[in-house]
């Protein structure tokens, strides 16, 4: 049992299958990715997008071939210091304003189809 429960190291896979043939994702991988991204693609869409996907990634080979040993990743282009805010309450949205754009609301709550699960 790992000492750090539920917090694997960043490089350890957390359940997805290992990469398919080097750099070319097949239809199944695209389908799994779509599920992960909550995009309900029809079969026709999947048929259309899977080869495009493969082509796009194929065109990115130049990226993967570069030698980046010893290079630090660059998350944002300008180095910034964290700014912090004082712990002073500010204006809240009027609940009507917060709920107005909602597709469905019930008694001051956002309403969604019933789920019995914790996070999906």
């Amino acid at each position: 049992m790992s000492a750090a429960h539920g917090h694997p190291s960043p490089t350890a896979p957390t359940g997805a299958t290992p990469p398919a043939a080097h750099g070319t994702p097949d239809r199944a991988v695209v389908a799994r990715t779509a599920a992960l991204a909550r995009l309900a693609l029809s079969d026709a869409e999947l048929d259309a997008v899977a080869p495009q996907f493969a082509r796009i990634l194929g065109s990115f080979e130049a990226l993967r071939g570069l030698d980046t040993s010893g290079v630090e990743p660059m998350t944002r282009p300008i180095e910034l210091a964290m700014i912090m805010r004082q712990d002073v309450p500010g204006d809240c949205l009027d609940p009507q304003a917060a709920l107005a754009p909602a597709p469905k609301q019930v008694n001051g709550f956002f309403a969604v189809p019933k789920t019995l699960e914790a996070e999906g």
Partner: protein
Amino acid sequence: MSRPTDDDVPGVVSARTGQRWIPVMGLEVHCQLKTKTKLFSHAPYRFGAEPNTRTTPVCTGQPGALPVLNEAAVLLAVRAALALDATVATWSKFDRKNYFYCDLPKGFQITQFDQPYCSGGGVALPSGRIVRLTRIHLEEDAGKAIHDRGPDTLVDLNRAGVPLIEIVSEADITSAQEAFDYLTRLKETLQFAGASDCDMEKGSLRCDVNISVHRPGAKWGTKVELKNLNSFRNVMAAADFEILRQIEAYESGDSALFPVQETRTFDAGSGKTRSMRSKEDAHDYRYFPEPDLPPLHLSAELIDLQRRSLPESAPARRARYVGALGLSEYDAGVLTASPALAQWFEETADLAGSPKDAANWISNEVLRALSDPQIESKSLEDLRITPASLAELIGFVRAGKLNVPAGREVLRAMLTSGRHAAELIAELGLEQVSDEGQLEEWCQEALVGKDKVIADVLAGKDKAVGALVGPVMKASKGKANPQVVTEILLRLIRDGAPS
């Protein structure tokens, strides 16, 4: 510091087979930090507010809104780390944990993945053994989804964005009781550090437990996660049940029944854990560094300042109460039940000039008042007395102006009326009678016809006089000092026969 070896763990003995099994447990505790506003937005948080009344564009995930870090949350998180002996990191960063759920407004949670703000530390169990901590990190809370109120699931985002620290322990816990003790100690530490209220009922503390069992010396078993535990007792009960369930499963010999890696929920009514319906596929949270927030730098100066301003811990206070203030360990324990109570006691003791008296009055009278339905106060803040007003009352008693029973009566009046001792004593006419002449008169009257008592006292049984104290107190309408009355009675008896 490490987990005890299997040989040193009592474990759980199976009633069925007599075999000893070793439980392995780790706890993940989420604590809400005691800030006024949320972690990344200026919305204030209050448990029980009307739904969706405490939100901003940031915490409802409106497109275009951006997070800004709450400084107070960082400082409290640092204090929590220091109180738990963790090492605070100079540099840490925030990451996005991506998943879809109705209570997660942005579709991702801002948390800390591989560079948390601190690591290490530990919590001492009553036995003295330390349960090590793996890490603590800062993250924002999700909103609340309500499933049992009508045909839809209802979502309230008031809680979305509240600052949390997640405290992950190593798998050092070896029994359900230890889990309970760990939680109790953790709560005390965080409360006294001022970091969190740790009130499970109000949701400011939540706990998930990872449990497996194995035979001594064998490889560790499959880890099962327990969620939705809403009290320390339930944590213990759930752990107890789950340990036995896993033992039974292994002992069945049928590998199809062996525990699987899953998440289970606890049903307090039945006392059982049950599987939460399995999800479609394993989680892939696609963690990546949060581009909307720069890295977090915690300087040595900042950490030092927090360390120096850390409030005194509960164990340190107890030691001081016993050592320097002369209280019993029991009383010290009672008075450190919460930081508010300890603070209250210390102020009263200081103002009254007598820790022991303060301790007595608080333990016996004030705490009892809190559970008295006639006095409508539920907490120290609600009470209509203050350390100052109690200290004043104690002062009167110590000065002889009031006897103890009268003092109790005055205190009761103070609690219900909110008025001060001085005026109440006068109004109720409870001022202690100290006039020796008057006292003697009442004592003489009480001694009339009490030959047996007199004889007993003269024979050396001083205690016999106790029977007469009551009537004298009655005659004085409770205003005599019982000790003085006793002394006078004894003197009168010894000095000569009553006239």
